[in-house]
């Protein structure tokens, strides 16, 4: 699961669609061949601001879906929350505009060989990569349940065609504007038990992933999560997006979420570190 994504390449990609969906923008890029290498969990890194921009770093987005259309060229779809200057610039670009894009980057969700019962949990636009994942899982004969949560209804990303790929969809909002009032973690234990869940796949803010991991650990369910750490480069050279992960050899290392993640085994992350270097980490002094 770990290591450099050898399929990554850099392309100039045209925006072929840019639609506002609730609080987000659904954007589609013509990326050519590389679409066929994109797997659920992988991400893209896009240069923002244009040639003379003062924003020197790329912005990373989880891949929502990828379509390999043979000689017609592939498409990559992402969901963008315009909350910073870079993401706002991107969502303001029109169809036909070309961006510098690198994909697919990072690790992908591990797909079981057996037809097992999977629960997909997304927070906010963290739901994006889960729809592509659910299609893959369904094609493998897995039962797929989904829980999506956000602070408010506008921030739930759940397109109609996405919903078709899941057996059940539960929505939670903290303000109660749609679905169940509360957090995703309020409904998880019940769903895990009722549907006899074997594996949880999650994507969203770190606090949510930590809470999901605790439930997964208590109930003995495997948990794969896509972590969210601030990145400067997205390709493994800047060492800023690190988090403490315990390897199979028992050693804790500060690993890059762009290369050794974003998808990691939830039980391997030292969640208690709260962004500090845990005691005993390899090379800690």
């Amino acid at each position, binding site marked *: 699961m770990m290591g*450099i994504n*050898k399929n*990554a*390449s*850099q392309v100039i990609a045209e925006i072929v669609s840019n639609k506002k969906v609730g609080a987000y923008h659904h954007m589609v890029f013509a990326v050519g061949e590389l679409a066929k290498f994109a797997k659920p969990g992988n991400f893209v890194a896009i*240069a923002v601001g244009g040639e003379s921009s*003062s*924003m*020197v*770093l*790329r912005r990373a987005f989880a891949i929502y879906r990828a379509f390999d259309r043979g000689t017609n060229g592939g498409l990559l779809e992402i969901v963008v929350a315009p909350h910073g200057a870079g993401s706002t610039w991107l969502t303001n670009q029109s169809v036909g505009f070309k961006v*510098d894009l*690198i994909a697919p980057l990072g690790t992908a969700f591990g797909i079981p060989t057996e037809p097992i019962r999977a629960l997909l949990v997304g927070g906010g636009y963290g739901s994006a990569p889960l729809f592509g994942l659910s299609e893959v899982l369904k094609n493998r004969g897995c039962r797929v349940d989904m829980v999506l949560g956000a602070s408010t209804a506008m921030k739930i990303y759940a397109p109609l065609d996405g919903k078709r790929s899941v057996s059940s969809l539960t929505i939670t909002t903290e303000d109660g504007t749609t679905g169940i009032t509360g957090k995703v973690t309020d409904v998880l234990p019940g769903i895990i038990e009722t549907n006899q869940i074997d594996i949880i796949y999650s994507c969203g803010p770190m606090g949510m992933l930590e809470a999901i991991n605790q439930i997964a650990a208590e109930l003995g369910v495997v948990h794969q999560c896509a972590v969210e*750490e*601030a990145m*400067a*480069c997205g*390709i*493994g*050279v*800047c*060492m*800023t997006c*690190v*988090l403490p992960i315990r390897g199979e050899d028992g050693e804790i*290392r*500060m690993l890059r979420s762009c*290369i050794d993640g974003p998808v990691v085994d939830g039980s391997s992350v030292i969640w208690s570190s709260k*962004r*500090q*270097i845990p005691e005993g*980490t*390899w*090379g*800690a*002094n």
Partner: protein
Amino acid sequence: MFNFRTSLGQAEFENPIFTASGCAGSGKELAQFFDLTELGAVVTKSIMLKARSGRATPRMAETPSGMLNSIGLQGPGIDLFLEKDIPWLREQGARIVVSIAGESVEDYAILARKLRAVQGISALEVNISCPNVENRGQVFACQPATARAAIEAVRRNIGGDLPIIAKLTPDVTSIVEIAEEVVAAGADALALINTVLGMVIDINTMRPKLAGKTGGLSGPAIRPIAVRAIYQVHEALPNVKILGMGGVASGRDALELILAGASAVSVGTATFGNPTAVIKIKEELQNELIAHGFDSLREAVGYAHRKEVNL
């Protein structure tokens, strides 16, 4: 035929565009985007004696035309580095400049001894100016005496003719004074400049944004500081070769550092925004030099220092 060759100390390079230390990973991360032999040299991340976890997160903040980083020299330590990274770079046929960093003068001496017999290294960058250490007193390049001691330790232990490039910080009253000191101590060339110490405060939490509080500022925002430092040092020490770095994002920017006195140019932060930036910059630089009427890179080095001639 345009001559792009350059040299630092006794080491010759096919072209003057290098990566910057700490901005090219182990080399493998960039190798999937271009052939490393395209580079004048790969400058490795500054390696220390022992494995190092680096600092807590957040380690990074984007700033106008730049970024602040506080990595804290995360790395595998010299032994694992020599066992894994160097053989791999050698296999690629890349020219290698190894960057080293120590916590004490003794560290620099031991690092130099471990590197003296290693095959396939073109030069040694001695990083005595990393800003991301716990104690500012550990920034050797901030004081003439400590700068001298670190470079002397490397000189005494390196043997042979492996060029020593001393990497300096502009965060001093007189960079020329430090440059003269390290050259007297045995540095063959100078790397100018390391990042500039800075801070960002998050106005939501109302605390410093980086876990390490301060960080090193890099990117185009610091380019004028780099140009100034290179110009001053080249003026004082015209025979000492300079590896210039600081916010180079285009061939035009690289030319600016060369005109100030750099014989080669490292590209760092631009790689974070664009993994193929080094290749783009190399091509643009050659075009700029030709467009300005130079037949070789060497003719352009320090050209901004020429005396006015009234005809």
